[in-house]
């Protein structure tokens, strides 16, 4: 039953979250905005189209969108979903999760360079460079959780409720905030990136897909949406352990991403896009948050307040 919910949610969420963000932005701007499932319609439309392929490109360009999406799909195996369990759990599975996403990223960037376009090169450079800041922060965060829980698998890392009283009160919000930032960065949302712009010199994510069209573009967009959904599921899992019963967790798990998307939409409408040169500072906040989490966890564990032996 849960598996069905999980799979269904993972199929719907990627489109829904994007739709919610756009809707919130439109409302904040005083417009009615597109339907919630507009991204899904776009997706279907793109699937039906033909493609325009540059003569410069090689096989890499053709394979990358499919394989990137496949990598995200594979990564989804390890993410704790409703009821806090993942499809596949083992010690260190979160490493495979992160590295599958890395594989997808490698292929996407290579495909961007394959076109020989300087704009795509620029986008790829930015994407890769900001990723450099994201990854250590993520591992710092997960490492802290691993220290606090003393466990090794992704799903277990988020079982903070099990007797980590004070500790989880401090670590949880920090972790949530850091993950939220992660969604903004990886999802290409403001104030890090501006999905609406078409000023080439300021784009990050959009620029890497400038030359993609048809099904390829559809896969790329789906991959990005799925990634956002996975991260959102992580945020939901931070609070899941505090929800008793069997129905409540599922409801919370379904509601949390919607809330996250709404928040992202609000932020994007409220905050201006950061200058490109300042983006690294913004991303580095993630690392700072993770470090604070680590510091407090270590301190509290040492002071005997936490549950860690």
């Amino acid at each position: 039953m849960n598996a069905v919910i999980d799979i269904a949610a993972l199929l719907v969420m990627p489109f829904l979250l994007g739709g919610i963000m756009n809707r919130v932005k439109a409302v904040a701007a005083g417009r009615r905005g597109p339907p919630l499932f507009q991204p899904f319609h776009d997706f279907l439309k793109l699937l039906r189209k033909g493609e325009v392929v540059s003569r410069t490109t090689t096989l890499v360009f053709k394979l990358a969108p499919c394989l990137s999406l496949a990598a995200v799909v594979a990564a989804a195996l390890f993410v704790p979903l409703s009821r806090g369990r993942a499809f596949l759990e083992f010690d260190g599975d979160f490493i495979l999760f992160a590295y599958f996403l890395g594989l997808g990223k490698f292929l996407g960037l290579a495909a961007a360079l394959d076109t020989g376009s300087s704009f795509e090169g620029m986008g790829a450079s930015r994407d890769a460079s900001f990723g450099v800041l994201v990854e250590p922060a993520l591992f710092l965060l997960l490492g802290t959780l691993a220290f606090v829980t003393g466990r090794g698998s992704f799903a277990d890392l988020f079982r903070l409720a099990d007797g980590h009283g004070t500790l989880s009160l401090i670590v949880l919000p920090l972790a949530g905030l850091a993950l939220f930032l992660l969604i903004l960065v990886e999802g290409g949302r403001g104030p890090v990136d501006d999905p609406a712009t078409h000023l080439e010199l300021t784009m990050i994510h959009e620029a890497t897909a400038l030359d993609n069209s048809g099904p390829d573009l559809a896969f790329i967009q789906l991959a990005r949406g799925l990634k956002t959904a996975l991260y959102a599921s992580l945020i939901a899992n931070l609070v899941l352990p505090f929800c008793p019963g069997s129905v409540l967790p599922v409801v919370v798990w379904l509601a949390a991403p919607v809330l996250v998307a709404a928040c992202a939409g609000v932020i994007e409408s409220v905050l201006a896009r950061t200058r490109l040169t300042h983006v690294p500072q913004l991303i580095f906040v993630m690392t700072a948050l993770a470090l604070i989490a680590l510091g407090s966890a270590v301190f509290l564990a040492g002071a005997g307040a936490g549950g860690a032996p």
Partner: protein
Amino acid sequence: MTVFLAGCAAVAGGALLALAAPAKLRGVVYSIGGGAGLGLCAAAAIPVLLSCEPATFTAALPFPFGPVGLALDPLAAFFVLILSLSNFTAGLYSIGYVQTYPAAKSRLYYPALGVLFLAMLLLVAVRQAVAFLFLWEIMSLSSFALVAFEHEKEETRKAAIYYLVAMQAGFAFLLTGFVVLTHAAGGVDFSAFPAVLSGGGPLAAGLFLILFVGFAAKAGFVPFHTWLPRAHPAAPAPVSAVMSGVMIKTGIYGLLRLIQFMGNPPLWLSCFILILSLLSGILGVVYAVAQHDLKKLLAYHSIENIGIIGLGIGVGMIGLSLGLPAMAFLGFFGGLLHVLNHSLFKGLLFMGAGSVYLQTHTRNMEKLGGLAKAMPKTAALFLIGSLAISGLPLLNGFVSEFAIYLGLLRGLPGAGAGRAVALVLSLAGLALIGVLALLCFVKAFGATFLGLPREQGRGAARDGEPFGLIAQLVTAALIVVIGLLPRLTLPLMTGLVSGFAGAAGDSPVPALDGIFSSLSKGFLVFAAAGGALLGLRALLLRKRTVTETKTWDCGCQRRSGRLQYTAGSFSWIVRGFFAPLLGFRTRVKTEAGPAGLPPPVIEAATEGSDAVERLALKPFVKAVRTFLKFFSWVQSGNTQQYILYGIVFLTAIIILIFGLGG
């Protein structure tokens, strides 16, 4: 043991016959020897790895050596396996590579290569200090000869000399360390050393550090790495592959032996190794990101990977120090497996870079591009290597890094403040290394093989001759096999790693076995999803039109390779993050222009300089030079002055005698 010695003999025989063979057949002859050597060595090594029963042999040599014990224990067998494999692929790849040089020049290439491998094969088997040092120097010397192969180039000459001096400096530490060790142990045989080193105390720690410096200089740990980015680019590609793939690992081998001698290292020492490795890994990859030279980039990645290996060993040592066998097992497992993995993918990458160099005559990525169309096979193989070195799943690099991550995680439960911070930071550090490597290889692969040629005429390349491709293919196949089915490594390595970690308590092997099969499940899902999506794509496009045209490029339609994003600009943002480390400088060449106007720039280039070199090595060398210059008045040519030296010296002694005699 006889089989192993026969394998060594096969390697040596191939090299010797290559000396006698006609120029065209030299490489083939060598490779046949190498293949026989691989078969024999594998036949000798694999049983040892499976059974953990060391094979021994004692050679009674005359005086300076004395009786020399040879033993093929699991550690030695593991290295023998890697070495003989590398020897075979390097020989195979050399066939085409060396043939591009004049026959007279290549005559000594194969013998030198053979001596290098023979020295290394014996080095890991030998159990006696004198012979160990002797073989160590033979190894340095033969590799030096190979580095200097293209001695007609100024750059190569400089690099070779630099390499020689660096090796001698490192050797000085080894020599001193081993002499002190043998003095303390009362014998030159390795069996006497544990008694000295396992005792703890300042002597053991001091000796460990001295010897570690010697080994680190060979392995390329920061700050002893500066020779690496010089020597590797200067050497011919197969030699770079050998040096980077296996030769620097003899330093790791030495470190592992030291740990074996020591048994239970003190915690501070383990942490020292961990921190230094982390530093090597991060600095190595940061410098690699800043490189435009394809082979230099790979050389810096060797430093990075040595850091990763060291990280694994450090984790293992911490596990030993703390009495956590599972952590120790995973750490050593990851470190050792990465030794094998790195030898494979780095070999593959250097061979690919060599093919690119042979075809385009440049290693500068800013001049390359679009080679994937001209050399599709090489490009595909290079891509596999790039993915593997970035530690991405499905390939072998991931498996070993994953094991190190697991080792780090195993240390976390119940950790105190210091350990927790150290391990979590290492976790993040390893992630940083991984993501930087990813960026770096997107850059390297993209700038070299993708897009358009950046310079006219460089695009006219071919895939090269079949032997080289076979060598690369064999390597790539192993990379994929280990990557997809990591469980296969367990039976080979369990005994070896348990030897280090100690098999007390519950063995982590079954758990690891389960994890590895889960990994393979994940890979299967990826493959299924990828296949399905590709099929879907093909299905969708079957009835649609696929138009081939120019790159859209936001409408900027001037198609020119020179307008592409360069490797330098690709890494520009990240270079900014690490600017203080890199010491990046723009070198501008100008010429005299019209008066009153700024002189026109005719050439501009950016270059980075190594922080270790800039902050430590150069000032040191400068200080030494200044100190030596202080004596420049000595040889003035004046006879009277010469006589005066003697008189003054004599007078000083006499005064001293009077002073002492009272």
